[in-house]
């Protein structure tokens, strides 16, 4: 009976138009809601404010990228949404519920693939199913689908150390998508990859996002990656991390890579964000 649930989670790719407008956002329930959130860490010497007055709503099925200089609390923001970290003040909501403790209705991808060395690619993906005690047969079928979708075919039985960085990150992505999470959190997932592999992964992520219809929150250092992938780009400033501006990219969901990079909307958005980040920090 998981089938019925699955279909409701998956938004038909065809219905996905351009960037969601204000009207669309109000129409749908917010997948993620941050309301005047602050995070303060107390160290022995001083108090550090990692996030300050952060408010953000992410609609169901929306792709939001977060860019900002190092140490602006981008990763902290994802951990808040996942419930791995507690906000000092303000409210964090996931699918309308307040986040209190680790949430299971998300998928998480880190910069390092964080794979188990002693498991093959397939069994690394299946870890998600084992921990959740999902029925074995549907889980296995779902792994096959994901392996197909992410181009891992032929590498199912390879161990992590036999895989390239890009392949390892594909395995991590499959693991994060196995349970069809309504929200996917990605913390610089392609930061450790070479430029070419990164472009390839960007193209694939765009396709996978359209196919699965999940909400994605992506933290990245790359402005072009953010603009190419996202409906909206959140620009943050460092110490204390706050949202400087939220930019509507205004491109349709399906994006050809070279074509998109040449578009005036793309140029304008990247230029604008670069200006904002340049103003926020002298050099980054």
């Amino acid at each position, binding site marked *: 009976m998981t*089938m019925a649930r*699955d*279909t409701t989670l*998956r938004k038909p*790719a065809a219905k996905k138009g351009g960037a969601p407008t204000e009207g669309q956002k109000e129409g749908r329930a917010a997948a993620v809601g941050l309301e005047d959130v602050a995070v303060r860490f107390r160290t022995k010497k001083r108090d550090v404010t990692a996030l300050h007055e952060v408010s953000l709503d992410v609609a169901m099925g929306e792709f939001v990228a977060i860019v900002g200089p190092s140490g602006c609390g981008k990763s902290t923001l994802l*951990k808040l949404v*996942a*419930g*791995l970290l507690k906000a000092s003040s303000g409210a964090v909501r996931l699918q309308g519920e307040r986040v209190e403790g*680790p*949430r*299971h209705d*998300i*998928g*998480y991808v*880190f910069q*390092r693939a*964080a794979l*188990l*060395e*002693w498991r*093959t690619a397939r069994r690394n993906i299946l*870890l*998600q199913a*084992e*921990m*959740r005690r999902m029925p074995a047969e*549907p889980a296995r*079928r*779902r792994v096959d*689908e994901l392996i*197909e*979708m*992410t*181009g*891992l*075919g*032929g*590498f199912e*039985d*390879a*161990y992590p*150390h*036999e895989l390239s960085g*890009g392949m390892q990150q*594909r395995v991590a992505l499959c693991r994060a998508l196995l349970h069809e999470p309504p929200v996917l959190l990605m913390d610089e997932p392609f930061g450790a990859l070479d430029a070419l592999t990164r472009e*390839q992964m960007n*193209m*694939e992520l765009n*396709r996978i996002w359209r*196919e*699965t219809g999940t909400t994605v929150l992506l933290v990245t250092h790359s402005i072009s990656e953010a603009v190419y992938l996202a409906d909206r780009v959140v620009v943050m400033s460092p110490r204390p991390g706050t949202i400087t501006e939220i930019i509507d990219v205004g491109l349709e969901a399906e994006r050809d*890579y070279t074509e998109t990079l040449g578009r005036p909307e793309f140029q304008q958005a990247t230029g604008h964000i670069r200006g904002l980040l340049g103003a926020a920090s002298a050099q980054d």
Partner: protein
Amino acid sequence: MSQSVAPASAPPPEPAPAPARDREVSGVAERNGPGAGERLARAVEAGWRPVALLAGCFAVWWIIAAAELVEPYLVPSPGATLDVLTGKADYLWQHTWVTTYETLLGFVIAVVVGVLAAVVMVYSSTVEKTLYPILLFAQVVPKIAIAPLFVVWLGFGITPKILIAVLIAFFPVVISMVTGLKAVDPEMLQLSATMGAKPWQTFAKIRFPASLPHLFSGLKVAVTLAVTGAVVGEFVGANEGLGYVILQANGNLDTPMLFAGLLVMSLIGVVLFVLVEIAEKLLLPWHASRRDTNVTTSY
């Protein structure tokens, strides 16, 4: 019904993501390893140096004995030692078995208790703070100095020998296991939390397997120390075991027997060490293969 789950058939990604490696060649096939001939060649390549060194030592020993550079009753010839090894094989075998038995039992108890202690210490900082000073104290007290006390308390049987073997082998097991359990990738634990894993699931599927490479390096130290522990116990008071054999031979100035005892004793340590290494290779093929590739990259 099941079709509805499948995603709309994916358009093939524009840049072929998978390198043109066919299924047979990828990963698994490579791990099947080289043929028997090549494996033998590799073993010879890896093994001839230590064998040559050992042969050299025997040669020096033989020359010293043959030329009578030292009085024969101080250093017996290899021949005389070999005569004892073959001629008194039954006697030696009987005592070797006793020492091996004590060593193995001590080692196994040290591993079980050590691993359990490490797990409890890693999961409870209160227990760690309570146990750690005691552990350290037990480690710094010279075991040879406590051995007589154990004999007084527990008699001349094998129990005090096993206890000393446990005591001496325990520390490296605990330390390596604690290190291993703490070395787990914190992101892996966070990931586990988002998967809704129960603590025991995280332990069984992530933390414990991740700690095994560390544990095994501790086990290799522990197993050789366990031999020492058993022999120390036998020195202090015993009527069987290789420690007893050596003490008897010493009293009779029977150096060939003394040398034979020493050889067998070292052999026990070497064999047990190799057995632990084999167990490591069998249980952690992923770790061993990774280490091998690291070695081959250095030149």
